[in-house]
Structures are given as C-alpha cells and as structure tokens.
C-alpha cells in the first residue's frame, strides 16, 4: 500500500471518530454548549485540557526549537508547564466556585462594571483569534505534506471537520473529541521517540534515554552531542545562557500567559466540584508532561541523528555526498523545508554554523558556507522517516499533528463564540434573550468565528509566528492579573481593574510593536529587534511578565486612591474563596 493511502486511512479514521463523537454528544442547552453540562470527570477533563492546550506549536514546533537552541530554549518546557501550578492554586478552584460560563463573566461581575467586562472580551478575542490563526495554518501544512492536497484545500477540510463537532456539540462535543485527540496525538508523538531512543541509547524511555549513554560512541548522549556541534561551530547544546534576566522573564511570561489563556481556564468550569478543579489541573499536567518530558529527548536525539547522517564519519571527516542522501531528505526537499545549495561545488553536504568566529576553520576545511538549511518544524514530522520506521508510523504522525492543531482550534473557537454570545449579546446587548435564543446565538457566533479563522488561515497576515507571542503577552499582561486580583484582593475596585488591564495591555502591545513593527506591518519597527536595543536586555517576547507587573501596580495604586468596592462585591469575593455554597457559608 502506498504511503499516501496509509496516511489517508489514519487521518480519515481519526476524523470519522471525531465526527461520530460529535453526533453522539450534541448540546441541548447553553449549559451543555458552554461547560459540557458541568459534569465532566476530573481525569477526563485533564485529558481534554491537555489536548486543548497542546497545539500545533507543542506538537510540531517545540522539539525543533529546543533542538536548535539547546538549553537556552528550556524556557518553553518550564514556561508551558509551570503555568498549571498557577492555574491550580490561584485561579481554577475559585473560578469554578464562581460557577458561571466565561472568563469575562467573572471580570464583569467581580468588578461590577460593563466596561471591565468589555475590556476582558476584547483581550480574550484578540488573544484567541491570533492564536487560532496559527492552528489553522498548522493544520494546512500537515494536510499538504501528508495528503498531497494544496495547503488551502487542507485548511478547508480542517475547517469543515471543526465546524461539525464544535457547532453541533459546543463544549460537550469538544470535550470528548479532545479526549480522543489527546490519545491520538500522544501515541503519535511517543512511538517514534521510543524507537529513536532505543536506536541511540538502548533505553526504551526517551526521558531516561536523554541522560543515558550513546551506544555507538560509549559517551553520554549529551556530551557526544556537545562535541559534535562544537566541531561544527555551533554553541554547545548544554551551554549556559548569558542573559539570565531575559530567560527568567521569558519563562515567567509563558507561565503567566498559560494560566491566563481563556480557552484553558474555561475547561475548569466543566468539572462538578471545586475539589475536582484542583485535581483536574494536576491530571492535565500529567498528560501534558507525557509529551513535554519526551520533547527534549526527541530534540537532542533528532539533532544528533541529523548531524551523524550528514557526517557519517564524524564532523571532522568528509561529509555525505548529495547524491547519496537518504530518502527523507528527498521527500522534504519537495516541500521546500529542506534546501541544499552546493556552495563549494564538491557535491557534498556541509552543514555548519556560518558565523565569523568559525570562518577560519571552515575555510581550512574547504567549506564555502553552510549548504543545508533545515526548517525546525520538520523535526517531529520527519522523525519516523529519519529513524526508518514503518510507514504506518508516518500515517500516525499525520493524524497526530492534525489532532493537536484541531483540538486547540476548537477550544479557542469556543472561547471566542461564548465571549460573543454570552458576554456581548446576553451580557450587554440583549440580557432578556431566552436560553434557546442564546444557544442559537452561540452556534452562529461559532460558525462566524470558524469562517473568520479559516479566512485568516487562507490569507495569513505574514506574521503568524509573532502573533502567538502577542497572544501570550496579552493573556499574561491583562487577563491573568485581573482574575488573580479579583480573587485575592477585596480592595481592588472597578476603576483599578480597568486601569490595570489597559496599562498592562497597552504597555505590552507597544513594546512588541516597537521591535516587531507597528501592527506587525513590515518595515515599521521603531528599533531593530536585536538584543543591544532591548530595554535592559528584555526581548519583546519576554515583556508579558513586565506588563503583568505594571497591571498589578496600576490596579492597586488606583484602587487605593479611590473608593472601596461595595459590600456585595466583597461578599462575592468571600464566597469564591470557600468551596461550600455561598448561602450555607454565611449561615443565615
């Protein structure tokens, strides 16, 4: 059977499963549409949260980023997991106790202000829409590589599938498809990793393989990798970083951003009790960690594998002949994600770090520039081919990549549509709308959100990578601090909260625009985006944490200068703090 047919079977079977679940889990009320009826088991919710959270970025890009950056990119690992600690202790249980449907619901009620609610809706929509573009384009790439359709056709197919289960089932349909998608994506990620770990270290568990001995050389794997990359002019894989302040702030921004992303937070509204929300966050992180502990192993092993393929006799000996390149390099050359340019005309592939410091060594070896460019994103997708795994594993990777992109897209679309139908329409425009009317409004906003996301995916604004940074920056600087202050302080009032959210939002967005271009329009950046220009060495991607601090500082200052929140709001804060029902707690 051809590879194409196998891929088609795997992807087709997984899609049939998602649609089957959608038909079985139709939503009949707004409660089912927004929070899956509120009766989801905490372990099930943990699994759905893991799929909701792990996007195309986690599945496809992260291992490639770590492979390229080594230790310096550990920020992604710590940042995208550490946020769950914040979520479990600072947000999820209290928001579950509050017991409403959306994030702006809480901000609007707690800060007794439609203005605050609308600012929250705006932050939520900007963060989620920018995030969803990345998922749609990710799904398009996976389709075009594995199903030999054009990028655009792939995107349309993805949109139709999401449309079916998200519009019909709402949160209920999404929850159970996300569980299925988690299973697909984790199997797809783990199997090639296990084989590669076995091949390189003899250890079947990739996280242990990472710190074991490289069988071929008898050296520890990481030491071997350090040695090979050093010979090619790259920085040591395990080398420490100089700009620690930036690394700390970047990690912190990712953590706070993770905890503040609305599509993740609303997953915790679906469990029956406050205690379940706490357990559920733990389970979510367990399921996420299965991938996040495997990713750094995949990163180092794939990098070593790639370099030993190019330099079969070691980096100081002759490189591989282009004519003898393995099949997977040929396949990926077709996509343009691997490019070869024989600069010194010797017919061999020289891959090295083309920097001035290494030029002398390179010239001495007769090299005239780096000849192979490899896109980081192919690392995970090409893994089964690099390790010579059977073709069904490649089909599995295709289904896994799509599961990761679609599950996150669906979660984001739900967050967007509930903000529109519940917070804008019911919350501000037409509070008297019936449950049935609101459900219809929710379905229509979902459909519109999918159309907009698909359109943006077809016409990507050309800055997809930067906008994800924007999504995290906004979640970190505006949503997280507002929620946290709403729970942990009785003194922060509506004026403080609105001023804080706006200050955090504007300072972060402006800092990003200064270096990445105003509204991301190329050529409009005020300063070149290099470390020497950054304020105190803080990169625009790390600014979310600073934005959050500005938000806290402004909110407290303004609140203490103005009046206390009314008594009923202080009672509301009291009530979210204790798991037992508010009525019982005041004991009348």
């Amino acid at each position, binding site marked *: 059977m051809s590879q194409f047919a196998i891929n088609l079977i795997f992807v087709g079977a997984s899609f049939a499963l998602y649609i089957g679940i959608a038909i079985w889990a139709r939503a009949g009320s707004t409660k089912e549409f927004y929070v899956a009826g509120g009766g989801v088991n905490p372990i099930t919710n943990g699994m759905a949260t893991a799929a909701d959270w792990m996007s195309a970025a986690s599945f496809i890009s992260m291992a490639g980023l770590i492979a390229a950056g080594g230790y310096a990119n550990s920020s992604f690992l710590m940042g995208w*997991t550490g946020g769950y600690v914040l979520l479990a202790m600072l947000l999820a249980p209290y928001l579950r106790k509050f017991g409403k449907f959306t994030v702006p619901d809480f901000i609007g009620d707690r800060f007794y202000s439609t203005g605050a609610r609308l600012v929250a809706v705006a932050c939520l929509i900007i963060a989620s829409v920018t995030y969803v573009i990345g998922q749609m384009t990710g799904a398009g790439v996976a389709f075009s590589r594995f199903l030999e359709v054009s990028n655009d056709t792939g995107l349309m197919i993805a949109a139709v599938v999401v449309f079916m289960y998200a519009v019909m089932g709402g949160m209920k349909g999404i929850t159970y498809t996300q569980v299925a998608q988690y299973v697909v994506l984790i199997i797809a990620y783990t199997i090639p990793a296990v084989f590669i770990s076995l091949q390189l270290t003899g250890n079947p568990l990739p996280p242990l393989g990472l710190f074991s001995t490289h069988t071929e050389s008898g050296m520890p794997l990481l030491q071997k990798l350090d040695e090979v990359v050093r010979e090619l002019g790259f920085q040591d894989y395990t080398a420490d970083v100089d700009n620690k302040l930036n690394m700390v702030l970047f*990690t912190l921004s990712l953590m706070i951003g993770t905890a503040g992303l609305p599509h993740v937070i609303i997953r915790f509204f679906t469990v029956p009790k406050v*205690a379940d929300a706490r357990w559920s966050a733990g389970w979510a992180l367990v399921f996420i960690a299965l991938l996040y502990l495997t990713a750094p192993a995949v990163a180092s092993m794939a990098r070593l594998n790639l370099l030993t393929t190019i330099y079969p006799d070691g980096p100081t000996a002759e490189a591989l002949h282009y004519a003898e390149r393995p099949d997977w390099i040929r396949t990926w050359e077709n996509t343009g994600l691997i490019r070869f340019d024989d600069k010194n005309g010797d017919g061999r592939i020289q891959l090295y770090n083309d920097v001035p410091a290494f030029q002398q060594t390179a010239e001495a070896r007769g090299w005239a520039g780096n000849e192979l460019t490899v896109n980081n994103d192919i690392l995970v997708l090409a893994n089964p081919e690099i390790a010579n795994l059977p073709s069904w594993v490649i089909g599995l990777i295709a289904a896994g990549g799509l599961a990761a992109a679609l599950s996150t897209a669906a979660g984001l679309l739900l967050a967007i549509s509930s903000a529109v139908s519940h917070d804008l329409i019911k919350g501000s425009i037409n509070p008297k709308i019936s449950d049935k009317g609101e459900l219809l409004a929710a379905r229509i906003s979902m459909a519109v959100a999918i159309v907009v996301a698909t359109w943006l995916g077809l016409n990507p604004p050309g800055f997809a990578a930067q906008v994800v940074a924007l999504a995290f920056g906004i979640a970190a600087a505006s949503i997280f601090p507002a929620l946290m202050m709403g729970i942990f302080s009785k003194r922060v009032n509506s004026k403080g909260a609105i001023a804080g959210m706006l200050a955090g939002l504007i300072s972060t967005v402006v800092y990003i625009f200064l270096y990445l271009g105003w509204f991301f329009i190329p050529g409009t950046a005020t300063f070149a985006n290099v470390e020497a220009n950054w304020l105190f060495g803080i990169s625009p991607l790390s600014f979310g944490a600073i934005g959050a601090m500005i938000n806290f500082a402004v909110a407290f200052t303004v609140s203490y200068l103005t009046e206390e929140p009314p008594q009923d709001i202080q009672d509301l804060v009291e009530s979210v703090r204790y*798991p037992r029902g508010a009525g019982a707690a005041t004991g009348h």
Partner: protein
Amino acid sequence: MVEHKKNAAAYWKANVRLIWISLVIWALVSYGFGILLRPLLSGIPVGGTDLGFWFAQQGSILTFIALIFFYAWKMNQLDKEFGLDEE
C-alpha cells in the same frame, strides 16, 4: 455567625500560606535551579551534563506535578477540617 467568620478567615489564611510555600518551591526549581543557580550546580554531573540542565528540562516539570497534587490533597483536607467542603 461570628464563629463561622473566624473559621473562614483561618481557612483562607491556611490556603494562602500553602500557596506561598508551593510557589517558593515552584520558583526555586525553575527560576532557581533551572536558570539562575545553574552555575552553582554545575559541579553535580547528571548524564553528560549538570543538575541545572536536568532541572530545566525535566526536574521542574516533575516537581510541578508533585506540587499540584500535594496542593489538591492538602486543600481537600482543609476543606473538610474547616467544614467548608461541598456536600
């Protein structure tokens, strides 16, 4: 009523204390061992590299999981102890 208020305040204080302890550990393993204190841990070898690298790529994640489960278990206990759990 007054009795109850005292009880609730004590519960909240215990919760905040538990969060502080957890977040100190959270910060220590990631920002501490994983980033800032890595040079100090460079003398402790772990599989071809040092302990700081291990914390940055694995140790912190494992600690985070342990922290959340410990917090959930401890809080569910406190809920019952203070009579504030859900029926």
